[in-house]
């Protein structure tokens, strides 16, 4: 899933200070799972916003709405009848969702209430860890299912570096060294041959905006353009 973290309250408040009617828009998918931007967090943020301006003369109005997925026009349509009542939208979805919301309602200013941080996993309730940087040429077959791009601080393809420290990465004792883990796993599986050969430079396919059209959908997409 995509993991995001709520922005500092003061930054959020400042970004919308010029608007009197703000709709806080949550997303029911990734950011809800990581407890950042789902229905509950939308409620908490708008309550905090309301509270923080009690003393002010003309308090702003905060509405709440949470759609199933902000990264999907179909779900964004659900709020089409109410957005017209607001002069700004405050999105709690990931960066992709925020952009799609802005694209669906281009006449209304949209502001982010979260910082989108990574593609990661749910280690436990409230505990998430990064696992993938979407490099576009997945190397997991070679590395025993441990991502060298994300989990190695230097994105090495022929590791470990000289700084590896008894199983920890040189950047931090609490961060395991990816290449130490890769070696350990491949060694246990009898697959060390995988990393004996020199791995050639990666083809970084995430350097331009990417589009994917699944086979069989080309025509349909062409005709809808």
């Amino acid at each position, binding site marked *: 899933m995509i993991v995001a973290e709520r922005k500092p309250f003061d930054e959020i408040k400042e970004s919308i200070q010029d608007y009197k009617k703000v709709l806080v828009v949550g997303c029911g998918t990734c950011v809800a799972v990581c407890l950042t931007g789902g229905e509950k967090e939308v409620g908490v943020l708008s309550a905090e916003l309301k509270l923080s301006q009690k003393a002010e003369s003309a308090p702003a109005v905060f509405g709440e709405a949470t759609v199933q997925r902000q990264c999907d026009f179909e779900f964004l349509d659900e709020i089409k009848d109410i957005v017209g009542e607001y002069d700004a939208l405050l999105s709690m979805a990931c960066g992709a969702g925020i952009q799609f919301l802005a694209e669906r309602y281009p006449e209304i200013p949209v502001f982010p209430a979260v910082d989108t941080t990574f593609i990661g996993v749910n280690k436990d309730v409230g505990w998430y860890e990064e696992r993938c940087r979407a490099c576009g040429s997945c190397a997991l077959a070679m590395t025993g299912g441990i991502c060298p791009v994300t989990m190695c601080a230097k994105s090495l*393809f022929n590791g470990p570096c000289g700084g590896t420290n008894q199983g920890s990465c040189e950047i931090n004792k609490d961060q395991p060294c990816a290449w130490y883990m890769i070696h350990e796993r491949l060694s246990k599986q009898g697959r060390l041959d995988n990393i004996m050969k*020199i791995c050639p430079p990666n083809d970084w396919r995430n350097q331009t905006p990417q589009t994917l059209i699944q086979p069989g959908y080309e025509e349909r997409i062409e005709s809808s353009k």
Partner: protein
Amino acid sequence: MKSGSQLEKILTAGHFAFTGELGPPRGTNIEAIKKKAAPLKGMVDAVNITDNQTAVVRMSSMAASLFAIAEGLEPNYQMVCRDRNRLAMQGDILGAYAHGIRNMLCLSGDHQQFGDHPQSKGVFDIDSTQLINMVKNMRDEGTFLNGQEIDEPPKMFIGAAANPFAEPFEWRIFRLAKKIQAGADFVQTQCVFNMERMREWIKRANDMGLSEKAYILPGVTPMKSLGMARYMKAKVPGMDVPDYVIDRLKGVDKKDQADEGIKMACEQIAEFKEMKGVAGVHLMAIEWEHKVPEIAERAGMLPRPQV
């Protein structure tokens, strides 16, 4: 000859090589380079010019290498993967060679998080093994990484770094093998303090025939004080400082610790001279360049052979 550098000539002639190190200034202070360079002249065969070492901004290693040449030293131009992508690297290699630089040491580089600009974006487009291979292909195939032809290819004598001490220990020798397979002509190791492990690592390199394929130069760093030894043990990632090093420095008077550190370094060098598979030593006298003549003298490295 691959590059015809002084270092290559010394090593291929079978002499025991001796290399030093010079860190560029944190500014444009050319006098500081001259001051560091003067005591190294005639004492070492080549001088490593570090590249934004410990991820702290300094004068570029290429520019400082050129100043080193002007001072009569042969540079071993260091390049890290942290700060440049493949385009910038290849462009710099062309420029370095055209300016007379003939040795290059290819490194990953310390992570930027440790340095003076921790907010920076690390590049790491290719890694050190891939960099070695790229420089080799530029030299031997006359091609860029994309396979296109180079108009007068750069011919570098290619160096790699190795850390014989980091875990998993059994993998270290294979990583060395990969770097040599990628094209490393010589290998400079991390500072050696743990001699038992070093002997074992060299033995494995000999058993695998690696010391015949590349020249191995263990890194020697004289301890200036007990404090430095303790710091390196506790704080420097990948550094293996055994207790007997600490104990020996503890055993002498504070004012004699520097001298004891030099004595220990000389003992290491003496052992390396006799060790099968070792082709020289790389002296990393960190911010202690003025002591290099004394160390070279006491270690019996003088005069340097003329080839």
